[in-house]
């Protein structure tokens, strides 16, 4: 190789080192800023809600977990015991299982969890691992989040290793190198982080309530509900996929080990197609076998909200008025379960992840 090319390559390497050094310093500095902002964030679904829950002065007896159909529809004040709504919109069971580990590691497990279960998640053959990305902040800090994130990024030819060997999953994960950047923990949520941190600084978080967020009724609700309900048509090909239960099984196993009571429920639909009801019935069977009480508003609709589009935001979500009705009914149905003596005290926290 001619000497002048060697010289050019040396210059290039020097240039590369310089760029990487500047990136490294800027990245670490920004990561420190974001970490500080994150710790102060007490609202929002990019970690603020989890922070708020972990900072509560007293541990609620009941925690509601699930997606938007529980987030906007279960009002904690309806229950007879102190309750917190820890739901995150759009999040499937994998997220709930990872989140359970996060609150367990922080020793903030409640005595009872009211878990919302959404049938479409189990009639869809494709697994939705990506939701664990919403707990990016805990990568490397929480075993379950780290393991699931590595599984998510595993390079295709090595995907078969994922369920077998954790170390191999980490080695072949395309996600892992991204965390070399400290700011990657805040990837896609920097603006939200800044906004929520600023808002948290202005408002005392303790007065922000119980995790519930109301969808206020609007004059377009009925129209939107009727429009969106037209899409909820019967799907004769939909079937319940028992293999999709693995994260729910893991969730229930952890709760059993920690002596946490779990109550399952599924929120109503404005016009439930037959396959959804069938999936809920399959669910009911599974949960009964697991010893988990299950309240199914799809197969057994809530009369107060059926056929009344003005109580819905769309065909899948009740607005605040509808949410009050559902919460009231739900509270009534779980009252006797909550009144029963709690399971024996949970043992000292230990890593739950590698099960």
């Amino acid at each position, binding site marked *: 190789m001619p000497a002048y*090319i060697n010289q*050019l*390559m040396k*210059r*290039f390497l020097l*240039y590369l080192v*310089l*760029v990487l050094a*500047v*990136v490294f310093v*800027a*990245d670490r500095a*920004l990561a420190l800023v974001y970490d500080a902002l994150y710790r102060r964030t007490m609202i929002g679904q*990019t970690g603020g809600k989890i922070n708020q829950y972990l900072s509560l002065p007293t541990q609620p007896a009941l925690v509601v977990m699930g997606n938007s159909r529980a987030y906007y529809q279960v009002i904690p004040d309806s229950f007879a015991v102190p309750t917190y709504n820890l739901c995150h919109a759009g999040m499937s069971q994998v997220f709930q299982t990872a989140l359970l580990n996060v609150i367990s590691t922080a020793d903030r497990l409640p005595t009872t969890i009211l878990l919302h279960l959404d049938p479409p998640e189990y009639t869809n053959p494709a697994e939705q691992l*990506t939701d664990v*990305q919403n707990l990016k902040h805990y990568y490397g800090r929480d075993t379950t989040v780290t393991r699931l994130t590595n599984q*998510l*990024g595993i*390079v295709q030819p090595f995907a078969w290793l994922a369920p077998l060997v954790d170390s191999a999953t980490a080695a072949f994960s*395309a*996600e892992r*190198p*991204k965390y070399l*950047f400290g*700011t*990657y923990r*805040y*990837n*896609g*949520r*920097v*603006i*939200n982080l800044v*906004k929520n941190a600023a808002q948290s600084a202005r408002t005392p978080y303790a007065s922000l309530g119980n995790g519930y967020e109301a969808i206020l009724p609007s004059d*377009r609700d009925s*129209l*939107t509900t009727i*429009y*969106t309900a*037209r899409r909820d048509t019967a799907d004769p090909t939909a079937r319940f996929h028992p293999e999709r239960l693995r994260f729910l099984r893991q969730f229930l196993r952890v709760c059993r080990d920690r002596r946490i009571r779990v109550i399952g429920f599924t929120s109503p639909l404005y016009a439930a197609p037959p396959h959804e009801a069938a999936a809920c019935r399959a669910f009911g069977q599974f949960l009964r076998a697991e010893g988990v009480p299950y309240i199914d508003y799809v197969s057994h609709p809530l009369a107060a909200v059926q056929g009344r589009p003005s109580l819905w935001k*769309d065909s899948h979500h009740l607005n605040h008025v509808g949410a009050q009705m559902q919460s009231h009914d739900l509270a009534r149905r779980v009252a006797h379960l909550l009144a029963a003596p709690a399971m024996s005290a949970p043992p000292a926290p230990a890593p739950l992840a590698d099960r």
Partner: protein
Amino acid sequence: MLFNSIQFLIFFVVVTTIYFALPHRWRWLHLLIASCVFYAYFIPIYILILFFTIVIDYAAGILIENAHGRRRKWYLVMSLVANVGVLAVFKYYNFFIDNVNLLIHGLGGGQAAGLAHLGIILPIGLSFHTFQAMSYTIEVYRGHQRAERHFGIYSLYVMFYPQLVAGPIERPQNVLHQFHERHEFDFARVVTGLQRILWGLFKKVVVSDVCATYVNSIYNNYEVNTGLTLVFASAMFAIQIYCDFSGYSDIALGTARVMGYELMENFKLPYFSKSISEFWKRWHISLSTWFRDYLYISLGGNRVSTGRRYFNLWFTFLVSGFWHGASWNFVIWGAIHGCYLIVGVWTKSWRRRLSDAVGLREGSWPDKAVNVACTFVLATLAWVFFRATTFHQATSIIAGMCTPTHWLNLRIQDTGVFAAMIFGVTTMLLIEFFYLRRHNIEDITPARGWLRPVLFSTALLLLIVQFGVSEGDQFIYFQF
């Protein structure tokens, strides 16, 4: 293998390092193997389709060059039929069957089962490499290019991995000779190539993929969205598809440039165009020039009667729409652009008089701004047909845009996504408006001092890490 993946990053570093370590005589083989690996990463078996067209066109090129008279044309037709045949089977067969079945039912065929679909997936980038292969035999036939005797080099012309799956659709005159030339390591060229890659990646993951999140949420619920929301989502789709495709092209050009290959520019800030005809000189240049050179001119181009010229123009865009996909929506999209061009020519003097009447002096910045805005609106309206999954959806969206009820009700959905989208689009437009209108990314070269390229690369890297969608979709144009 997607350009926006860690796998590609590793692939690129390994392939480029080996490339520069190898003596020149082995580099074609190295690049050919790398290109095979790159393509086989999607669906390995489909490499056989590529091999089929490569063998046919390689042989056709030599036969055309050696033949005389009508035989030359015959060999060209043979090559074109083979290429179009591959496209017809893999891309258009099921579309054809759907329409035949629809026709049978329409003519009273009742609930008959109809003709069966082919159970195949469209090979990635089929239209791109097929068109590139066709341009080779056409150029050899026209005598603009000598037939390539080196089978490996010819294969590399079709398979060169940076532009294999989504272009630019190269011409043999521009690329083939570069595979024979020796490319030494050039510090400034490598750095500017890497910057081009970063710029493309920024457009893809920070702008396009974030826009996609918003646009999908609106288009998937188009029935419940109204006026401004649909207008805004459609405008964001215009930005999304531009950043997706031009981002891919930037990565392709940058990747090739690092190794010393110069591919043709595919985009030149199309949304700063002042007319639709200018738009098509700046958007997907490699395809629009392909259609101009091989279809429009073959139909007679401008050297025919006015009526025939308009037909040629419209027909060329119709075919261009069909090239994009086997769906009537793409055909309509192409037809709309054809109509825009014809109406643009018809109304040119009338529009000028109107501008003068309202005091917009030709060439003044308000005149330019109005023309740019009008062109963007027209392009965006046509994109509705491109993005919608059905004709009914497209017409419903356009009707929704025009419905006055709740028109100003802009649906933001997720505030974080919306803010990130506005941030990404604004950053991209500011860089394009204030810098790229007058310069190229290549002008930020370390040959003129290291400060600017270091800062530029650092800023892009940090923006990608913090704002990029890390689990983004594949590039939209891969499906073509």
